């Protein structure tokens, strides 16, 4: 459904020295900078799949989404979305895609959402019955029937995002781009947004590309991810693959009454990362786990022991920052 092949984009911006003198100088001469936003990125997304696009600010996630939705032209490489070249912006292509940008309102600010939906119905030429059925379904699942006739500008951020979702899904798109859909939402709203996206994807099988800075979004929604660092692809594959390939660390938590002997001790096969009253937490390399358990249990009288996988978000963050290398 979505096939991206070595796509790249460079922005040209001008740099201005700070202060009044810098402003005056920039009137006469300008220093131009080429900023590589995306470089040689390739991946694919199938129908019914949610792909997580992960990266720090400025990593190129939104630029990639803009190229794949046809808003901007790439400088190199290519992409096919539903068999179309996105930036040719064919009408049939635009009829089948949707884009939600969490940081930008797409709805008409001064009008109630119901009015915006009617306009979208005509623009996308949705027949009456299908429109009503889809609208009823979305309104009921998102529980927003009481808000339909309130101007968009008077809605809370969470309510507005639900309306944006409805607007984006009214024409039952086959490809959906979600650019930080949960940004700024409270925990409850984030959860409800996530469960909605997951359920929608299971029922309607669109291909979805999702960007988010919240690891909960990625972990709960995306079986596959692409990690970008400074415009370059550093990982593409299963989320679990990261854990398997990169996370060699286990977290061992021990509940005990006696923590006094522990802090100053030099451990042979693990690292103490947390010591609170009655609780010790260690990072241990997977292959040294047996040796570490023997060591720690010979010293500490444990009431309870748990062994967990290291937090995947730590690994992803390390990849994003370049502190870890993909295998």
């Amino acid at each position, binding site marked *: 459904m979505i096939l991206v092949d070595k796509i790249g984009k460079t922005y040209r911006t001008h740099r201005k020295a700070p202060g009044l003198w810098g402003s005056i100088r920039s009137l006469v001469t300008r220093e131009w900078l080429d900023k590589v936003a995306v470089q040689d990125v390739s991946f694919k997304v199938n129908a019914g799949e949610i792909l997580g696009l992960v990266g720090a600010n400025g990593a190129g996630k939104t630029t990639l989404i803009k190229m794949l939705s046809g808003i901007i*032209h790439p400088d190199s490489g290519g992409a096919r979305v539903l068999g179309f070249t996105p930036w040719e912006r064919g009408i049939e292509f635009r009829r089948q*895609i949707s884009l939600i940008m969490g940081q930008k309102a*797409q709805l008409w600010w*001064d*009008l109630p959402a119901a009015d915006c939906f009617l306009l979208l119905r005509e*623009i*996308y030429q949705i027949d009456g019955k299908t429109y009503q059925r889809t609208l009823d379904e979305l309104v009921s699942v998102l529980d927003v029937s009481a808000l339909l006739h309130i101007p968009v500008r008077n809605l809370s951020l969470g309510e507005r995002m639900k309306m944006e979702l409805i607007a984006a899904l009214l024409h039952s798109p086959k490809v959906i781009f979600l650019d930080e859909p949960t940004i700024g939402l409270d925990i409850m709203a984030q959860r409800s947004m996530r469960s909605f996206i997951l359920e929608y994807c299971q029922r309607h099988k669109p291909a979805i590309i999702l960007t988010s800075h919240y690891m909960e979004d990625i972990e709960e929604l995306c079986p596959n991810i692409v990690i970008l660092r400074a415009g370059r692809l550093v990982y593409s594959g299963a989320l679990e693959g990261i854990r398997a390939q990169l996370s060699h660390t286990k977290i061992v938590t021990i509940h005990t009454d006696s923590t006094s002997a522990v802090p100053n001790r030099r451990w042979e096969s693990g690292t103490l990362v947390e010591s609170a009253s009655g609780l010790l937490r260690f990072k241990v390399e997977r292959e040294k786990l047996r040796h570490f358990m023997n060591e720690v249990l010979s010293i500490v009288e444990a009431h309870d022991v748990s062994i967990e996988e290291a937090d995947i978000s730590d690994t992803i963050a390390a990849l994003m920052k370049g502190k870890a290398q993909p295998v």
Partner: protein
Amino acid sequence: MTSPRAVAQIMSIELRNKLSYRADLLIEIGCTLFARAYLSFVVWQAVFQQTGTNTIAGYSQTELLVYFVLAAFIFDLNSINLGFISEDIYRGLLSKYLIMPINYQFYKIISWLGRSLVQFLPLGAALILFLVFGNSQDTSRMTVFSLLVGIFVCLLGNVLNVILYSTVEFLGFWSDKVWSLSIGLHLLVYFAGGIMIPLGALPYSIGEVFRYLPLYLMVGFPTEVILGHVHGLALIRGLLAMLAWFVLLQTLSRAVWRRGLQMYGGVGI
């Protein structure tokens, strides 16, 4: 191809948008209409009294009063388009329209029609009142026919206006701010569009050059048609000139749009 229902819906949504700020709308319509009518009355009365003449460039005092108010009103309708595309580019709002299955420029023309409807209503009412009560053979040539044809020409003029302004505003793809260019064009329309006085009152050679420029065809021409001063061959000549400008500007506009889209970065506030 956009369906007629979509066109109606776009117009309707823009109209509703306009109606959502009631006080602003009433002040805008009321103040501009009355202030201009008063100003025009005072100026033309003084001119006619001083010169002791009955007509200027074929217009009676009453006609010139209505001419000024009408031309200024049509000029205002054109002003709705000021910055209407460059701001979308600058603020990144264009992205929203680029992913929809609709032609952006066409959407903007229809939006303009929707927004201007609300301003047409009081003016239409005022013109009808003038036609019924203030109109006589001595003071005016306006007829129901000239009014209807004139409104049609006014609509065509504004389509031409949207295309002309969008060609200029598409330069926003290259330069962040093109406000000054739009303002420059706007002032040019004010100067050569026949807003203050009909072109007939200008020196003949200048008036004849201006007569075939899009600036006049957008403002002065529809005003003169409404007031019944342009008909027959002159009307056809004006319409043909509009058509020629429409084809030329639309070709240019599409070329700039296609090239500009390749520059668009989708960044904004």
